[in-house]
């Protein structure tokens, strides 16, 4: 097996596993950059997966055909934002502990999603969808020698959308007035308030955007990878996205890179047994790699990762 064959096996698989992580991690960037911790990404992603699976199933029944996954993405984003509004209400308006509220959100999403699945389908899982996002070659780009085969062949469109969205998020955060406001609210809310910025409003927008993107991540997972929703569809991908966001130092493009890297680790752990020099490495090292690396990154061993300054602290007007 030549080196190119190995890359051709791993790289597309990595890009596929990374797409849901990228969306969810970008959601995390919005929330945490505005100063609100979002442990609830896992739950938001889980509920997005549930919403996606249900919407695609009924989309097929209604004859939407190939459009149903894309409709489901929109629905999952709206539902994700609605669910996140609970977290926003608790942690911004009611000044609850943000981590606790996030944990509660995870419980709520998991309980509600499976409760509704049982209620609607009378079974522990949703029916398997037939309209998945299909793999395709990108015209022209897939003809590029070497790179075309690796990056633009036999891949899901959603993966490219994910990369594109990451660039948009970067532009919004660093090149627009709204992005400046969002970041300032996360670093020093009192200074931002003094400059006339509505701190709670900006934070609400940050949290709702994180819900929308995490919901999208979950729906993309269903449409491209799992094909239905069960209690074990989303087990830790949301936390892995959280890790990617931190490993990427709360920066959209960093989160993108980290998510791709974690996707690579997952791809290797799945298909590593076919690859000559990797099959000797126990699979467990590849499974735990993303988490170990995140801890090392936080400890400053792989480049210092500093959180936004006001992360996790509710803002109270007039408090010094």
């Amino acid at each position, binding site marked *: 097996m030549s080196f190119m064959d190995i890359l051709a096996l791993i790289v597309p698989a990595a890009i596929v596993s990374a797409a849901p992580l990228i969306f969810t991690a970008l959601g995390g960037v919005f929330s945490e950059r505005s100063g609100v911790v979002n442990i609830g990404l896992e739950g938001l992603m889980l509920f997005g997966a549930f919403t996606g699976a249900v919407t695609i199933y009924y989309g097929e029944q209604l004859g939407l055909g190939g459009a149903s996954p894309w409709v489901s993405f929109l629905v999952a984003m709206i539902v994700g934002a609605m669910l996140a509004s609970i977290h926003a209400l608790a942690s911004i308006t009611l000044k609850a502990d943000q981590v606790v509220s996030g944990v509660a959100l995870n*419980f709520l999403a998991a*309980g509600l999603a499976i409760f509704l699945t049982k209620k609607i389908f009378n079974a522990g899982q949703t029916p398997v969808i037939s309209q998945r996002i299909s793999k395709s070659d990108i015209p022209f780009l897939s003809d590029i020698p070497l790179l075309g085969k690796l990056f633009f062949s036999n891949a899901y469109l959603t993966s490219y959308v994910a990369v594109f969205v990451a660039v948009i998020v970067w532009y919004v955060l660093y090149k627009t007035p709204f992005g400046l406001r969002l970041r300032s609210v996360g670093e020093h809310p009192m200074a931002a308030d003094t400059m006339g910025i509505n701190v709670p409003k900006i934070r609400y927008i940050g949290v709702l955007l994180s819900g929308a993107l995490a919901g999208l991540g979950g729906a993309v997972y269903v449409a491209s990878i799992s094909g239905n929703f069960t209690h074990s569809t989303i*087990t830790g991908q949301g936390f892995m996205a959280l890790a990617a966001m931190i490993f990427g130092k709360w920066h959209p493009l960093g989160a993108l890179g980290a998510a791709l890297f974690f996707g690579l680790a997952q791809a290797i752990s799945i298909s590593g047994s076919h690859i000559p020099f990797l099959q000797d490495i*126990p699979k467990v090292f590849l499974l*735990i790699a993303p988490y170990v690396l995140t*801890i090392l990154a936080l400890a400053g061993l792989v480049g210092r990762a500093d959180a936004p300054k006001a992360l996790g602290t509710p803002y109270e007007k007039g408090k010094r």
Partner: protein
Amino acid sequence: MQNKNNKMKLLVPLVSVFFGLLIGGIIMLVSGYRPIEAYAALFEGMVGGPYYIGETVRQMSPLILSGLAVAFAFRTGLFNIGVEGQLLVGWLAAVYVGVFVDAPAIVHIPLAILAAGVAGALWGAVPGILKARFKVHEVITTIMMNYIALYSTNEIIRNYMLAPGERTENVKETASLASPFLQSITEYSTLHYGIIVALIAAVIMWFLLWRTTMGYELRAVGFNQHASQYAGINVSKNIVLSMAISGAFAGIAGSMEGLGTYQYMTINAAFTGVGFDGIAVALLGANSAIGVVLAAALFGGLKIGALNMQSIAGVPTELVGVVIALIIFFVACSYIVHWLMNRVSKGGKI
């Protein structure tokens, strides 16, 4: 003032439980179930007979310990979300000692529980050291450590302890907490002696925190790190110590599963959930030993009663998860309760 604080301490959990159940009932009503019938079945399944009581008490034991773990770290101002991982390594350590060590029961059981505690303590100390030495937030590291524990324990079982059925061998009888006596008085529920261990742990937690110098220092760090530092308390040491003790409680919670309920350890596809439930237990119990025991009784009972609710009223057991989530939300938002109470007590003036 003191009196009012005590009243609030009781009021917030009670109000939260009430509203959690109320909204759970509304969800059932909207979904086309009969809430009153469902809650009656739930209650029946919690305490309606010796068998159900036995099951509820059995479910309580790991919940008390995981709740104590979360509560203990909270007292030092630390949020240990890593109970789940510490529980898994504790479970594995207890089963390892239970399977591979030969000793009379009087030595074997304490040794296996001790091994679980030490394993959990070591696993919990890592985020503590990272926090003390590198100022890394413990919430993130403990989440990461959970996954590392999940995959690592599975790998160890698969490579060194595998028995047919994706699990380890049963622990030896001398290490087992199972009790034919307790089973016979509860119409053959799965009740075991673990509840005694859990209650002893609750007393130990109370004693450590409120009757020793160490506990005073730990709580002081929780109130104000800078003031403690200024008063000559070694903050770094206390952070590591708190996480280690918290991890020890979590590890022992794992031994409840390993030596009591299951007698072995399975290869887990996902987390047990006991560790995350511990967060709910600690919050509802206001981080006090007695509160944790009461909250564990409620949540343990709800989880067991849910089975009866499903078979009699047809409501999926997951409803209980939703109710528990709602209760945590309300406890977390107690700010609004405090604010309302203040408004009322000041006669409507600000």
